């Protein structure tokens, strides 16, 4: 704790310039470097998670045939791929990209600070995260293969090597997830303290850009929910390695206990990643609608309300796990209640757009598609949150499609929205709008072609986590739907090449980005593109005079009014 009382301005790393050499990047305490490390690690893991989906979707569409680039998929490999696809996409893609990368990049820049308040803890956070990523990747290639007991890791399957057949893979999986939590714990402390203590002079609580609030509320949710899961992870690890029986009914343990501990974290986790995506959407929509955000405080209080409610819905994942039906009724009510604040947030965004002069740039397209696609996920959630209909739909592809209609918009669409919006600030180059639009439409359309067939299959009773549906006479005839989904997935993966081409093109000969290409109000657009170490020259740190969404102000010549422009200059 030696570093903790050092003031935000006093940390010594400002004496020298940015990172030196490749290794220097991993030892940099600059929040922008750490953000980029998180971003590129997250993108690399997304690529791995996406290729895993390609392999197991090919197995489902063409069972038993060798998959190009992989070979024949065995049932054990299939389970490991499905499990680790889920784990990686949630813990190593959604969280690092949306919270860690953009939280690190945006919070100090948007509140006018030169860095996080604990830069060295921030560096440690990434290093632990990198270690966790290496452990989860290593778990795939150890003897026995990767863990195959689904991303929820229910015991006894996950606790006993005699059942899961992956003694090393299962243990490494738990260790990797636990390490990843430590990384986000360190990062979350940093976000919360930085937002509370390091804001620019004049920036009051209601002048903070919404995306910063959302990332910080999400961090608080994470901090409050992760404790019980860490307790559960330690118990699971002891069950696996030391032979304890916390989850083993034969010696007095309780397997359902794990489900409670897991979902007490698992459901708030959905909102941990949803809130930053909403924050990104709100900032982008306000900027490109040239309208003041409708109901700033309403949105903020709604986010807090979602956070509180999200702690009382977890058992809706356990309706068929033998819980008391009276308890199921209570959790049905809380689950359906939570859709009210969520849709309230959406109406705030619609009201912001109403009467605005909308600019359909690439980030705006991503932000709007987030609303449309997430809405499908939210609507289908109503059927799953009602305990009656869930008894039929539980563990079918309907759940799977619902889940992907929430997480794909959050992690991938929200990630692309944020990335394309802040890319000019991060790298000082503009992205190509035409290639961006091709990538956008290719991804969105193929995404819907993957998961709408899976909704239909789920309604027909197709169960999740099954290696080959040809063995089920009543499900075998629906093979064309599976082929459509797999084809759409391959198309979607191919469209990501357009994105990488856009990146390469922009880095090599992109148009240099001005300070404020989108004519936005928030403070990060007053720094150079890309911002230097320390973000602003020490004698020009910004001062804030107004809220972040003053667009289209009557009586002003330009339709935006940056937070740092002194009113005196206008008079």
């Amino acid at each position, binding site marked *: *704790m*030696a570093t*903790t*009382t*050092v*003031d*935000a301005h006093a940390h010594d790393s400002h004496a020298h310039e940015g990172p030196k050499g490749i290794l220097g990047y991993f030892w940099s305490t600059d929040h922008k470097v750490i953000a980029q490390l998180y971003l590129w690690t997250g993108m690399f893991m997304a690529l791995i998670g996406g290729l895993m989906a390609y392999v197991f979707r090919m197995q489902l569409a063409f069972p038993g045939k060798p998959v190009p680039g992989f070979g024949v998929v065995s049932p054990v490999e299939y389970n490991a791929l499905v499990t680790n696809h889920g784990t990686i996409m949630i813990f190593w893609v959604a969280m690092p990209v949306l919270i860690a990368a953009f939280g690190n990049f945006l919070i100090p820049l948007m509140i006018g600070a030169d860095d996080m*308040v*604990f830069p060295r*803890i921030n560096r440690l956070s990434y290093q632990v995260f990198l270690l966790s990523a290496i452990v989860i990747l290593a778990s795939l290639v150890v003897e026995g293969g990767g863990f195959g007991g689904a991303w929820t890791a229910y015991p006894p399957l996950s606790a006993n090597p005699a059942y899961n057949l992956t003694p090393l893979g299962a243990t490494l999986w738990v260790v990797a997830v636990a390490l990843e939590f430590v990384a986000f*714990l360190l990062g*979350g*402390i*940093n976000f*919360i*303290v930085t937002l*509370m*203590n*390091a*804001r*620019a*002079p*004049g920036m009051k609580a209601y002048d903070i850009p919404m995306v910063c609030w959302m990332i910080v509320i999400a961090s*608080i949710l994470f*901090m*409050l*929910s*992760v*404790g*019980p*899961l*860490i*307790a*559960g992870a*330690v*118990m699971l690890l*002891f069950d696996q390695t*030391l*032979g*304890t*029986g*916390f989850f083993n009914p034969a*010696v*007095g*343990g*309780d397997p359902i*206990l794990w489900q*409670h*501990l897991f979902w*007490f974290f698992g459901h708030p986790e959905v909102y941990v990643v949803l809130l930053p995506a909403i924050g990104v959407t709100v900032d982008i929509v306000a900027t490109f609608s040239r309208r003041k955000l409708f109901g700033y405080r309403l949105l903020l209080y709604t986010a807090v309300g979602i956070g509180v409610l999200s702690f009382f819905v977890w058992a809706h994942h356990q309706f068929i796990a033998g819980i008391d039906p009276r308890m199921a009724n209570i959790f049905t009510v809380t689950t359906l209640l939570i859709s009210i604040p969520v849709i309230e947030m959406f109406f705030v965004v619609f009201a912001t757009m109403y009467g605005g002069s909308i600019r359909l740039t690439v980030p705006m397209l991503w932000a709007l598609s987030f609303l449309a696609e997430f809405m499908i996920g939210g609507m289908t959630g109503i059927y799953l949150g009602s305990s009656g209909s869930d008894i039929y739909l539980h563990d079918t592809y309907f759940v799977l499609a619902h889940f992907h209609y929430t997480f794909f918009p959050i992690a991938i669409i929200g990630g692309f929205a944020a990335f394309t919006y802040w890319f000019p600030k991060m790298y000082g180059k503009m992205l190509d709008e035409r290639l961006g639009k091709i990538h956008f439409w290719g991804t969105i359309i193929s995404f819907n072609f993957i998961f709408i067939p899976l909704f239909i299959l789920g309604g027909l009773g197709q169960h999740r986590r099954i290696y080959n549906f040809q063995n089920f006479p009543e499900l075998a005839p629906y093979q064309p739907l599976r082929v459509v989904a797999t084809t759409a997935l391959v198309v979607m993966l191919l469209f990501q090449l357009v994105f990488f081409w856009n990146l390469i093109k922009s880095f090599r000969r992109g148009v240099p980005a001005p300070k404020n290409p989108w004519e936005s109000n928030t403070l990060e657009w007053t720094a150079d593109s890309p911002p230097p170490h320390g973000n602003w020259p*020490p*004698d020009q*740190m910004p*001062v*804030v*005079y*107004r809220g972040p969404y003053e667009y289209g102000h009557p009586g002003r010549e330009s339709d935006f009014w940056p937070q740092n422009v*002194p*009113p*005196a200059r206008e008079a």
Partner: protein
Amino acid sequence: MTAPSASLAGRAVQARRQQVLPNGVLGMLVFVLTEVMLFAGLISAHAIAMAGATEWPPLNQPRLPVVVTLLNTVALLVSGGMLAWAQRAWRRSSQTVNPPLFGALALGLFFVLMQGREWVALIREGLTLTSSTYGGFFYLIVGAHALHALAAILALAWAWRRLAVGRLAEAQLATVAVFWYFVVLVWPFIYIRVYL
């Protein structure tokens, strides 16, 4: 840095950044929030296991030493009190901080050593991590607390050492103290749930 004192719609701009609490203290409070939830998770898991058991503790397992641990609990609470005394003493003069800080450190160490002695005795009597769920939860929860106590004692020793060379800041003492108060105050809950 000084900001021009301008106002817009009746709004004056503050001259400098405002801190809610010192960075270290605030960061530690947030961390303690997570720790509270970790122990809440452990204790509720224990409660669920206890509620589902036919006999708790199992008949063939040793009983936990209730009285000795009660005395040990008092020692830990006194240690927390001495740290509060050290923090109050700081306001008068940093010269008077040393005795209560050392007292808090010594009593904390005493607590952990006594717990260790108790573990050795219990293991001899046949209560181990794998002997029953009862034993598993006992060592898991008390062990988790012991690890936190050891980390906090190291932090206290660090603060005590810095005080001796005259380099301890008040906010640093407060940061360490937040963590020690957590270790002290979570213990009575563990004692009531696990021992009684």
